[in-house]
Structure formats: C-alpha cells, structure tokens
C-alpha cells in the first residue's frame, strides 16, 4: 500500500500542527496504514501542495482553500474528543479517492 501523505496546517505552522501531525501518523499506524505528515501554515499551503502530492489536509486554523483535497478540522485530535470522527471521515475520503481499500 502506498503511503498516505497529510498536510497538517496551523496558524504558525509549527506547534499545533506538529501535535496534529504526530497524532495522525500514530492513528493511521493503528489502522495499519503508513502515513507521513508535513506541517504548514495557511499561507504556505499552496506552495506545499504545488510541490508535492497530498492525500489529506488536517487543519487547526481556518484555511484559505482545500485545493481540491479532502480537508478536516483537526481540533478534536488535540482534545481527543473527535478523534474517531476525524478518522472515520478521513478513511472514507481516502477510500473514495482510491487511496486505500
């Protein structure tokens, strides 16, 4: 299976997005899916997306655009109260795009 590539976005592109990125890699791992997450701030998103292919956006701050990618709010990953919902939505989107079975 191909690796899932996630763009993790927060206001500064460092602290919160690192928390989210790390958490997501772990959560996907638990599902037996290999994932990699890159951190960005909202204004740099376009650069990242034009340079590399991403499968999913997780955001902890409002984003200017979803650039045609499935994008979900990651706040619940930090508080833990929405972890399952996030993963359900993310997995559904990845299935829809044919990234996972």
């Amino acid at each position: 299976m191909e690796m899932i590539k996630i763009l993790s976005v927060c206001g500064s592109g460092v602290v919160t997005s690192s928390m989210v990125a790390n958490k997501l890699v772990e959560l996907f791992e638990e599902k037996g899916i290999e994932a990699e997450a890159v951190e960005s701030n909202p204004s740099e998103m376009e650069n990242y997306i034009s340079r590399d292919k991403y499968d999913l956006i997780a955001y902890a701050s409002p984003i200017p655009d979803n650039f045609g990618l499935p994008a979900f709010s990651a706040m619940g990953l930090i508080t833990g109260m929405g972890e399952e919902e996030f993963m359900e939505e993310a997995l559904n989107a990845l299935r829809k795009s044919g990234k996972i079975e």
Partner: protein
Amino acid sequence: MISENHIIKDLECKDSQDAIEKLGTLLYNSGVVKETYVSAVKEREKIYPTGLPADAFDIAIPHTDSIHVNSSAIAVGVLKKPVEFTQMGSNDIVLHPQVIFMLAINDPHEQINILKRLMSLFQNKELLESVKNAEGTKEIYEILNKNILGNGDGND
C-alpha cells in the same frame, strides 16, 4: 522546561490578552523567551485563537513562532475566574478556559515527546481536574513534572 516559577495559581486577569501578558512576563523574566514573545503571542491569538474545549473544561494554549523563544518552556495559569478565548480554528466560538498552558517551543520536532504528553494531559479529564484543583503551585509542578516530563513515575 517546567518550573514552579512559571506556574500561577488563582491567576486574576481581565481578558485573554491580560492572561497572555501575565504568563508571558513570567517566561520573559526568567529569560526563556525574547522581548518580542509576549506581543507576538498576543497578536497571534487574535488571528489564530487557541481555545480548546477539552473534556474536563475549556483550556487555551497560546503560543507563537519559535523565533521568539530562547529555550522551550511551558507556563501554566490556573485562573481565578475564566476569561474568554476564541476556539482554535474558529472566528466566533467563545470558550471560557479555566487553565492556560502558554507554550514556548524552541523546536517542535525536538520537543515532540513533550507535545505528545501535553496532548495526553489535555485528553485526561481526571489529570486536568487535578491541575485545576491543586492546592498550590508546588502540587501543579509535581503533576506536570510527572506527566509531561515523565519524571518520577518509573515508566519512562
């Protein structure tokens, strides 16, 4: 990283900006952040708010870019009365945090274990309650030292 000097119990503040000012000043006074840190956190909070509706109660994690930080530290304020913070990722959802974790992170990748443990703390209702209800700063320090730095529990 965690110091009793950076913890305030019964913090009295009039709003979120005042809370940031008071906690940030603690960090500045001990030299872990630069002079620009407090105003940078204040500005960032207006654009990218950090209120979080944790299971136990609302919290906030104000922070800013690492260029304003000399060495990583966390300041903690248990508020006497909650003040309004906007929810992370929103423009208009108002939360009433009772505990504020002000983060000064020098290198998020290097500090990832600390950030992970901090997230676990946010998700642990009982533990978060124990921070809020602690008798004093020493007790708060001990809880954080054990659960964030992993000292004293023999599991790390």
